[in-house]
């Protein structure tokens, strides 16, 4: 099946710093999503981005489908950005469950 690799596994930032999280995937995909998991375990949808670039406030994401990777940018980080960020993909056959990477654990310190 499709493989999803995220890097780095852990990241510690000073408040106000910028960061880039990477997601590599092993095959063509119908769907790529970025999630933030809060301390209570809830998954928050950040981006649905099978290709192209999107921005939402301090967050933006870019997926280069032909090269099988996606990047999540966090600018001017805040302590509330702390948590685990997951990349998940759905294979080309469609209507199949998302396959998750192992996540990047982000800690933003004041």
């Amino acid at each position: 099946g499709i493989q999803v690799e995220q890097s780095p596994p852990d990241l510690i930032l000073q408040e106000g710093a910028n960061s880039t999280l990477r997601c590599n995937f092993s095959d063509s995909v119908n769907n790529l999503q970025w999630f933030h998991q809060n301390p209570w375990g809830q998954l928050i949808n950040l981006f649905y981005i099978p290709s192209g670039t999107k921005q939402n406030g301090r967050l933006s994401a870019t997926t280069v489908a032909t090269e099988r990777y996606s990047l999540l940018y966090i600018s001017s980080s805040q302590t509330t950005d702390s948590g685990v960020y997951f990349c998940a993909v759905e294979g080309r056959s469609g209507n199949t469950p998302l396959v998750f990477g192992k996540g990047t654990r982000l800690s933003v310190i004041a």
Partner: protein
Amino acid sequence: SAVISQKPSRDICQRGTSLTIQCQVDSQVTMMFWYRQQPGQSLTLIATANQGSEATYESGFVIDKFPISRPNLTFSTLTVSNMSPEDSSIYLCSAFPQVLSEAFFGQGTRLTVV
């Protein structure tokens, strides 16, 4: 966006007992998915639930341990049976409200088995 309501949000259970988790979607969906997230780990798919047929289980998960019901197009339940401390995890349900769109997740059920 879709709303997926999952309950309970958390529970502490005695070993050997069973817990049923409910998931309600605010629109009709063809398939619903159940995931397990063990402490400090990523999400792993347990099974895919189609309305009107038996669920399809991933390798390492069996129906006797994780029976699933899907009585209609908006609702599903997952039961964790004969629990042991190793079943302590977050369980999440998911669905795609529309074809070729993003998936949404329930709030998760944090299960602790003592």
